[in-house]
């Protein structure tokens, strides 16, 4: 069968999984500087599923679409090193402050500029918000079907695609016609690692903004090797209604943010010494909390 045109939706996120004590500043705001920015883990699972379709069906192309600040181009390069064919960075101040709905609107309008597609694959959720909303919201705005919680693509045919979903309480095998949007769980296979040849090929891939800061020595590359151009898409390149974008286009507002201040209880403090632990256990047994 003919190759598929696949779009992978990905996000660069602060690594909130291993937040240390210095993650919060003294004034209670988040210290983003100490949190490394990473490829959202489930988006990597999504990329892997897309790349597996590409492995199987010749002529398939995989394009990464991400929305974020300039430095989010890093994850497009990460995708290229792993086998993606190209990437688009959707970036503009007009998108700042977007909630999930305004984000899905911007992504949807960008996708409409990208031409015909067969499949959109996204991570189920991003670790900085855990909302799992953007995938389904994009599908609704594009008017296509969605299958969430996917862990494997079992079969791709002209008439449609068969996938396995992993739910809290079991698995489902589901069939759907294309075009289609999938969101992928972490139970899907891990993403392949960087390929050394692709790393060499794409290490100078840059957006137009990044190129302004690139060393002179490499600038000649971008005319002769068009694949090194990471397409930077601004609000001017999409059709959009301004009041649907950014903070204005976001129905949810943050009313208040509270740093978590812990009021300590009057706890009994023990060490690993036998006596204290024996007393504690005795107390718990006598009060019938245990036993």
């Amino acid at each position, binding site marked *: 069968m003919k190759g598929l045109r696949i779009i992978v939706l990905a996000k660069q996120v602060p690594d909130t999984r291993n937040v240390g004590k210095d993650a919060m500043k003294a004034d209670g705001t988040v210290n983003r500087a100490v949190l490394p920015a990473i490829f959202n883990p489930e988006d990597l699972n999504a990329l892997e599923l897309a790349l597996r379709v590409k492995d199987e069906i010749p002529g398939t192309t995989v394009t990464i679409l991400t929305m974020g600040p300039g430095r989010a181009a890093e994850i497009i390069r990460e995708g290229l090193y792993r086998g993606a064919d190209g990437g688009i960075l959707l970036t503009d101040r007009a998108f700042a402050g977007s909630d999930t709905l305004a984000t*899905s609107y911007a992504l949807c309008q960008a996708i409409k500029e990208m031409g015909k597609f067969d499949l959109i694959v996204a991570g189920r959720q991003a670790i900085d918000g855990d909302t799992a909303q953007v995938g389904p919201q994009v599908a609704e705005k594009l008017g296509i079907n969605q299958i969430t919680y996917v862990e494997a693509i079992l079969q791709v045919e002209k008439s449609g695609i068969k996938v396995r979903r992993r739910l809290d309480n079991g698995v489902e095998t589901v069939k759907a016609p294309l075009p289609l949007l999938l969101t992928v769980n972490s139970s899907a296979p891990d993403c392949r690692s960087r390929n050394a040849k692709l790393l060499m090929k794409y290490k100078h891939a840059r957006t137009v903004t990044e190129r302004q800061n690139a060393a002179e020595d490499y600038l000649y590359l971008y005319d002769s090797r068009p694949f090194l151009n990471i397409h930077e898409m601004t609000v001017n390149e999409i059709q959009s209604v301004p009041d649907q974008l950014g903070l204005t286009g976001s129905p949810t507002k943050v009313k208040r943010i509270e740093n*978590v201040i812990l009021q300590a209880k009057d706890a009994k403090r023990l060490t690993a010494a036998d006596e204290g632990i024996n007393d504690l256990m005795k107390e718990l047994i006598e009060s019938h909390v245990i036993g």
Partner: protein
Amino acid sequence: MDNLFVYCEVEDGVVADVSLELLTKGRTLANELKCQLEAVIIGANLKDIEKQVIPYGADVVHIIDDPRLAPYTTAPHAAVLIKLFQEEKPQIALMGATPIGRDLGPRVSSALHSGLTADCTSLEIGDHEDKKAGKTYKNLLYQIRPAFGGNIIAWIINPDCRPQMATVREGVMRKQIINANYPSKVNHLEVSKYVSDTDFAVQIIERHLEKRKINIKGASIVVSGGYGVGSKENFKLLYELADVLGAEVGASRAAVDAGYAEHERQIGQTGITVRPKLYIACGISGQVQHRAGMEESAQIISINTDPDAPINSLADYVITGDISEIIPKMIRYYKQNTK
């Protein structure tokens, strides 16, 4: 108009606990707002299903019953809610933060351009003053949830768009019957008015559902481990203690992410909420996201090498030291002093 809707999930003819919990919460909020509480049940073979939700105080139960509507697929359920919400214009719509609610909620919010907040740990009614616009909003839904890896708590509001939508995990709210014979109106909806044949393009070919093997929610004692446990190997100590005490083993998200424990054991905002009579936290630092799932435990013991671990502020007993030293001592004492 302006009522509070709860989307109710049904599996095998039984309304999900999370939906009953939301009805209970919805009843309280509806009283405060002086509006009606309305349940929506979409599925197949739903005869008498209203009897399961009416005792929780639903003023109206909308039922749409068709063989094609179960098991759940996205498009037909979304089509029903989108059209029904356009007709009824609810001010608030709640659903479970389950695989179904998390699939359906964003779809509906996207179609209606209404705000949706995921995984709320608390819902309250309150006012909001927008100083910039010089506008005051009365009786908004405060959607309260930990954010940013649980380091902060955010109050989210949807000032202008309706319905104000939120999802809540199972176990976060408590279910409570208010009146077995609550006066209620049942409204059977006609499927053809809401769903078209093209909504059934996605087909479920096979389903294997497993009853949950791990019952942490119902356990009266939970032994829970965090990243500080250090390895999957060390987690065995927790299982030994749990085995002796007749407890279940839970885990923090960091421990699950590190592969020390299965996802089904995750306790916290994005996992399970527990209220056992004893919670033993081993090597858990105690981020808000975890605390949201266990802070209502009757008694809490924290075992941690860090005397200043945030979780210690919740604890009734703080044991500073290494679990590999402390847990065996607990097991030994217990075995020697009980029959």
